[in-house]
């Protein structure tokens, strides 16, 4: 540490004097002020981030106002920007992702915390956490070459034949679209749900389980009626964190969403999401208003994920503080 080395030369051991200068000379105050300055810079970065997003999208807000969020015509050539299809696509793909990943993730978390022997549980958790470290572009690569062909034929035609009476399973099967994006998002967020839910479940006091078992409950009944409700805030928090991730995920979705700004009821239809349109059009935006509209989309995405994250963090905080057996 170069900083502390530099400080140590000035740090004379005069601890009796109490003036600010003397305290600075012992180094304590200097170290405090230095780190405080850097801590303050975090707030500065966050403030600057909000300011840049806000000020660079002023043009779009002035021109379209609230219509930006409520209309669905996105035509850069004509200078028409309505973001509704992107908002719709972002929400739908995230909902599909949660519908698939929440039962799977919660089930796995229950297995890892309640049933599996600690050694096996730790080994499996380690593997699952490695999954969280796989870059999203690699998920995208697999989605393009492995998932999409499978969906095009046989999965989507099969779903269409069996569940075709439901509007979300109707229409031609391209492979790319809401369903493909939702599935790859589900695979990407499952590790977060598992690892945070498992933590919350492990934080439930053992006495709670023992009390339920002593009353004659089976192990499953104790888990489902006592342990899971006790950890519910943490579990809900993990779901919200997963939702925030899914909303902001860019690369994997961009590669399989189909890049078509439309609002379609069918999950088989191609669509578009906010991060995907930013990724695709940002470098090609020729007019200032186009760039401004894209940055406003960024602002919308930012606000959406900030609110969900803030909520999720508070929930996770609330459970892990309560537990007693947490290591």
């Amino acid at each position: 540490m170069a900083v502390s080395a530099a400080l140590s030369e000035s740090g004379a051991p005069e601890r009796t004097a109490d003036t600010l200068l003397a305290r600075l000379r012992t180094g304590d105050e200097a170290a405090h002020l230095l780190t405080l300055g850097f801590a303050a810079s975090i707030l500065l970065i966050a403030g600057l981030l909000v300011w840049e997003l806000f000020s660079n999208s002023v043009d779009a807000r002035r021109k379209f106002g609230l219509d930006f969020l409520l209309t669905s015509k996105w035509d850069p050539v004509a200078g028409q920007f309505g973001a509704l299809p992107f908002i719709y696509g972002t929400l739908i793909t995230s909902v599909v992702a949660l519908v698939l990943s929440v039962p799977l993730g919660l089930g796995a978390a229950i297995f890892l915390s309640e049933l599996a022997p600690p050694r096996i549980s730790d080994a499996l958790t380690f593997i699952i956490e490695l999954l969280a470290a796989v870059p999203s572009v690699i998920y995208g690569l697999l989605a393009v070459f492995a998932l999409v062909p499978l969906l095009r034929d046989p999965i989507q035609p099969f779903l269409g034949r069996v569940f075709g009476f439901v509007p979300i399973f109707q229409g031609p099967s391209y492979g790319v679209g809401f369903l493909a994006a939702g599935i790859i998002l589900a695979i990407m967020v499952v590790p977060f749900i598992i690892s945070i839910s498992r933590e919350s479940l492990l934080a439930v006091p053992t006495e709670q389980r023992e009390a339920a078992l002593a009353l004659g409950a089976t192990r499953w009944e104790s888990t489902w009626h006592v342990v899971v409700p006790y950890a519910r805030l943490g579990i809900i928090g993990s779901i919200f964190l997963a939702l925030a991730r899914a909303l902001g995920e860019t690369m994997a979705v961009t590669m399989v969403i189909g890049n078509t700004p439309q609002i379609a009821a069918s999950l088989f239809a191609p669509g578009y999401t906010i991060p995907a349109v930013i990724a695709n059009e940002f470098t090609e935006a020729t007019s200032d208003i186009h760039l401004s509209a894209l940055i406003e989309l960024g602002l919308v995405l930012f606000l959406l994920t900030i609110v969900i994250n803030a909520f999720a963090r508070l929930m996770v905080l609330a459970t892990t503080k309560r537990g007693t057996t947490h290591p």
Partner: protein
Amino acid sequence: MTHHYWRKLVNGLMFSLTAACALTAVCVLFWILGFLVWNGGRALNLDFFTQLPKPPGELGGGMANAIVGSAQIVLVAAVIGIPIGFLVGVYLAEFGMGSFPFFVRYTADLLNGVPSIVMGIFAYAIVVRPLHRFSALAGGVALSVILIPTTIRTTEQFLRAVPRTLREGALALGASKWKSIATIVVPAAIRGVATGMILGIARIAGESAPLLFTSFGNQYWSTSLGNPTASLPVMIFTYAISPYADWHRQAWAAGLVLLAVMLLLNMGARVVLAPGAAHKT
């Protein structure tokens, strides 16, 4: 009695289901690994590491410039992000009482949750726009804003895990507070802190969304940090969605290389540096 058997049955059935869930999640990793090793392994050759990309339509070529470019961008991000993240982590762990530190901590957590593409827009606004060009520097700034919150979190976490008695011992011997931090507390936690930093760097090395419009891309070697620079993740994206079969082949090779680096950094950091201290971001 039938009710009793029914409950037993539900118990067994539900727990088998949860086991199946866990197994499915784990299988995904092996599916990914298998697919990448199978497709990437066939595509990987020496050219990949030594040659520049060929124009579309021509066979062969490699991604040597993107490998070096990724290293450049990540280095810039680390040089900016690691010191800031580390010092803020020290502040939160050692001076972190009261409402201001709480606010800083919460802000860092929220920054951690901001989508990486938004960080790309941020770096575009503060670096690309004023300089009027895409650059490795801009890419590095975008990644550093992603690296800072994770570094803060892990540094604070591992510094806090250092026993109070060590600090008190140092103070009792007459060391000033910062001296006890610099010579006792930080060295005691250095393995954990370093693990956190390596994991953070591994994470940003795989990011592509924030680089699309900051470091952009380059068919050739980038000679300075002020020039557009190719990076491995962005190359995978461009090559995978292109219509050329030979580019698909190279995307697989790049995917395998990137995943191998990722897994090595992750496993190395967790297993070698801090046994048993697997953490979550």
